């Protein structure tokens, strides 16, 4: 069964980097959004279960998205992928409900570790 995921970043280059870093054997239905406002619209529409979220974006930034999801009680895992690596930024997004924070440029192992940790990717023991 595949999981519906949304990659939200204003940069198409950054979205591609996230796509490339996803586990190759992971069954997904991938959607993309270029700002937070698009993302909050798509999450209920497409039944998104996991959101990869950038913080610094025009129109509606990542903090506002997290805040919106929290206020609307939306059931969607969020992994923040950001270049803003200030300790405060990490703390703020975790408080707003993000399950993980991955610093840019993204790396495959970090994503996989988080996915396994939250049961979003099941690795069969060999």
């Amino acid at each position, binding site marked *: 069964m595949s999981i519906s995921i949304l990659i939200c970043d*204003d*940069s*198409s*280059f*950054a979205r*591609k*980097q996230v796509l490339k870093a996803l586990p190759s054997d992971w069954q997904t239905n991938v959607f993309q959004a270029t700002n937070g406002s698009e993302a909050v619209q798509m999450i209920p529409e497409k039944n998104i279960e996991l959101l990869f979220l950038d*913080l*610094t*974006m*025009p129109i509606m930034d990542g903090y506002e998205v997290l805040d919106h999801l929290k206020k609307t009680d939306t059931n969607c895992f969020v992994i923040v992928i*950001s*270049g*803003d*690596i*200030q*300790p*405060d*930024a990490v703390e703020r997004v975790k408080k707003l409900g993000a399950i993980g924070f991955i*610093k*840019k*440029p993204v790396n495959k192992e970090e994503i996989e570790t988080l996915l396994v940790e939250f049961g979003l990717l099941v690795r069969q023991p060999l």
Partner: protein
Amino acid sequence: MSTSELSEDYRDCFQEITNVAMGQAADKLARFLDVFILLPVPNVNMLQPSELAMALSAVNHDESVSAVCQGFIGSGIAGEAMLIFNDSTFQEIADLMNADSDDSNQLELEILMDTANILIGTFLTGLAEQLEVRYSLGQPSVLGRHVNIEDLIKINEKRWKQTLAIEINYKIEGSNINCDLLILFTDDSLNILKQKADYLLE
């Protein structure tokens, strides 16, 4: 070859690389001053020298400014980084640093140089890492103190042709501290930068 155009793919790629490098620089400064820095969406564009002053969004054009610049060169890439402050922000930064001095002139200079070292140094290192290039940094030098921004740019614009410019406006949360980091690449650097971007865009 005309460099007046920058395709959207290149612009987007340079902007994303900028995002990462500016975040690393902000992190350093945030830890140093124990503050939270608000990060903007950076501006990455081809600019004419005459457009430089307008591109500086953080700077209040009615106030005097001070600026530091630092050159970099290597791997076929060269350019200059500038950090520009409104003079009215120095006292607030001094307070954050718990810095006090009878010699306010000397104190301002130290603040200017310390902040420039952190922001420019970290930003350029982050950029080089991502592009997988090496360049060396020149000595930072004061470009002007207590001057009008238009004059500052005018004195220096002769050195620039149309150029790839990166502008980042750093703001410190809960304060009026606001500065502009401007990175200008030489015309000749653009082809190498595009080659490096091609590699990343593959």
